[in-house]
Structures are given as C-alpha cells and as structure tokens.
C-alpha cells in the first residue's frame, strides 16, 4: 500500500471528487433540468461537468481510449434524445453514468452479434501509458506500469457486473447507493459484486507486489 502510494498509483482523490461533484453538481443538475425543459444553451454546462468523468468511466469499461471517445459521443446523443426523462430533482451525474453504461452494454451486444473480439488486454496499448510524474524514477515507473497492467488485465477478465460495480465505487468515487441506482440493483448486490472484484484484484496484485517490494 505504501509502495503504491509512493508511486502515485493510488492517485484518485475520492474526497476531491466528492467535493468537486457537490460544487459543480448542483450547477450541472440545474442546467440539465433547464435543458430538459428546452433551454438549449444549458447543455454546455452539462457537457463541461460530465464529459471527462464519462470518458474515464468508458475508458475503464472499454479498455480503449479511442473506443471510449466513440461511446462518449453516443452517450451524449442519447442524453439529447432522452433529455425529457430527466426529472426535476434528479442528479445529472448518476443519470449520465447510467446512459453511458447503456451505451457500453449495447456496444458489447453488437460486438457479440458481429462475433468481434474484445480489445486485447495482453497486447501493449500505447494509449494506456503507465503512471508517471516528475518524482518517479525509471524503476518506479516500470513497477507502476506492471501493477497497472495487472489491474487492467484482471479487470478485463472479471464478469461485467463485477467490473462496473468496482469501477464506479473505486475509480469514479460514487457512493454505494448511487452505484446501486445506476446499475438498477440493490446496495447489497453492489457491495458484493465490488467485493468479489476487489478480491480478484488483490489476488492478482499479490502475485506481483511481493516481488516488486523486494526489488525496491
């Protein structure tokens, strides 16, 4: 854990995300509500508030930034089409995550129909670079890259319902109740799915981390 923190790998600032969400979220919720009533100009505020987070979510789910960009465009198209279903008092971030999840589900279904192979996680993906910062040296970057690749591979092998539960809680910084609303299931089911994912990831990292700790 200390090793990971020192490498800057455990870098997602949950509290920061929550504070940011609370501050920007109210504006975005209000803007989406206005857009749902027909105010076209309000959409720019919504786009600014959710685009990067949706892109990160879709990248984690699709494992390809290029594909994630395509899915993000489709997500925004669906948000435009479904704007009227955004109810007063709703929150745009969970709503848009739910639509992005729909888009990803449709992508997976279409891929299955076309019998396409999913994006390979074993192949080197130049877009998913290892974490790097000014304070890290070459060896640390290599270790972090290996850990990140292990997480990437393990996430890809998880059942989709476990992966999305874990991604929403761990990387997107959502609460269990929000994740349950997005996934259309109970909070208990979300916890269970995320916990199974966590156990699989811990087991995979357990094979990598001890060797690397010895090396540092």
């Amino acid at each position, binding site marked *: 854990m200390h090793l*990971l923190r020192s*490498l*800057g*790998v*455990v*870098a*997602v*600032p949950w509290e920061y995300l929550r504070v*940011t969400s609370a501050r*920007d979220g109210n504006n975005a919720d209000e803007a989406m509500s206005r857009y749902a*009533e*027909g105010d*076209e100009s309000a959409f720019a505020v919504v*786009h*600014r508030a*959710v*685009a*990067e987070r949706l892109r*990160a979510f879709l*990248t*984690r789910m699709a494992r390809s930034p290029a594909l994630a960009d395509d899915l993000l465009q489709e997500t925004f*198209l*669906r948000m*435009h*089409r*479904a*704007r*009227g*279903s955004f*109810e*007063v*008092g*709703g929150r745009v971030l969970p*709503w848009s995550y*739910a639509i992005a*999840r*729909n888009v990803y589900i449709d992508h997976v279904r279409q891929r299955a129909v076309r019998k396409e192979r999913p994006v390979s996680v074993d192949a080197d993906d130049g877009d998913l*670079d290892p*974490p790097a*910062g000014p304070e890290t040296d070459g060896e640390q970057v290599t270790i972090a890259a290996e*850990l*990140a*690749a292990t*997480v990437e591979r393990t996430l890809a092998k998880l059942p989709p319902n476990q992966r999305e539960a874990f991604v929403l*809680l761990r*990387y997107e910084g959502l*609460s*269990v*109740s929000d994740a349950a*609303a*997005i*996934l*259309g299931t109970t909070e208990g089911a979300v*916890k269970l799915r*995320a*916990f199974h994912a*966590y156990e699989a*990831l*811990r087991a995979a*990292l357990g094979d990598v981390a001890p060797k690397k700790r010895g090396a540092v």
Partner: protein
Amino acid sequence: MSDQFDLADFASIPDPLAKPARSAPPGPVPAAAPAPVAPSEVGPTRSTLHKRRLIAILVAFSWLFAVQIFIGIRDDVPAWIMVLHVGVPTLLGSVALWLAVQPGRVGLGPSMKAVAGFVVAAAVVFGVASLCTPCLERGLPLVQNSFLCGDWIMGIAIVPLAALAWAQRRSFAAGWGFRSGLLGISVGFTAAGMQALHCAHSDGMHVLLGHGWPVIGMGLLGYFLLRDRLRVA
C-alpha cells in the same frame, strides 16, 4: 462489510489510468474546444413527455372503460364488493404506475427495495381483497372460468400497455427491467379491476386466480417485451 471499510480497502488497488492527463478530476474544457451543440435529433422536452404520459393514461382508462360499457356493466353486485374487486386493483395499478415513473432519489427511478416491497404488499392486499368476499354464484368450473376471464383481461390490457410504452419509450436510464415489469403490473391490475365491472363471477377464488394471473402475465410481458424499448437507447 461496512461502506467505509470497503472503500478504504478498495483504495489499495491502483488505477491503471492514474496519470496526470487521465486521472485529473474534471476541469473546465480548454478554451479552444468547440462548444457542444445539441444535435438535430434532440428529444422531446420534459413537459412534452408529461403530456404524452397523461394522454396515454387517459387512453388506457378510456379504452378499458369503453370495453366494459360495450360488453355490459353489472348492476346486481353490492357496492362493497365493487370497491374490493374494482377499487382495490385499480388503486394498486395506479400505485404501480406512479412507482414505475417516479424519479426516485437521484432521478433513476425507485429503488429495488421499494419495488420489491410494493410487489409483496400488492399481492397481499389483492389476495385479501379477493378472498374476503363470499361466493355469490357459480358458473363454469373454477379453473376454466379463471382462464376465460384471465385471457380476456390479457387481451384488453394490450392497448393500455402499448399506450404507456409509447409514452415512456426511451425514458428509463436505469432499472429498465423492473420498471417495465411494473408498468405491465400496473396495466394488469387496472384491467383486472375494470373487468370486475362486467365479470359474472364475484367469488373470491375466481377473482384471485382469474383476475390475478393476468397481473403476473402482464408484469412478465412488460418485463420481456418493453424493457429494451423503454430504456434510453
């Protein structure tokens, strides 16, 4: 396995995207980025959707009532039995519809707990309302007349289900499966209630079975037929 415990533990899993360009929380878009423009295929506004929903409800009730007038409304059944066999299912149908379309805590519909609670409570209330009425008359054997009534209810409920599907198409961002099922249950209860205005059998077992199984049938129909049509796609 508390939330705090889980969340703290999850932080030990590194983020494969954790680099400055990707892991940074959302910020303002660069000044050079073009402002997003709403596409031409923008959807209807919220007030339009609410109007559609109102129209669908009016169409549904008008259709069900018109059918009963056409086939004949009984006037020989005591008022209290009418309340139990017509009022209670219609009320349950209205609650199911309200639950299916209500925004919930974050705008993604009711929680699974609320839906499960309603389904259990509705089954109990409908069962009690059906069985606390005496056997007034006997016609065909129980199973046969139950299927006759059930088939008829399923048949007349298709129009309201289609109307609600039209009003709510592409409007469920999450929980589309159980919300579609709730719409089916709503239509099933309402049609069952309306059918009791005409039904020749007022005994409890007939109402429970003959008017009860179409509610389950419509729930399943809603779940399997509508879930992909009602989700945001």
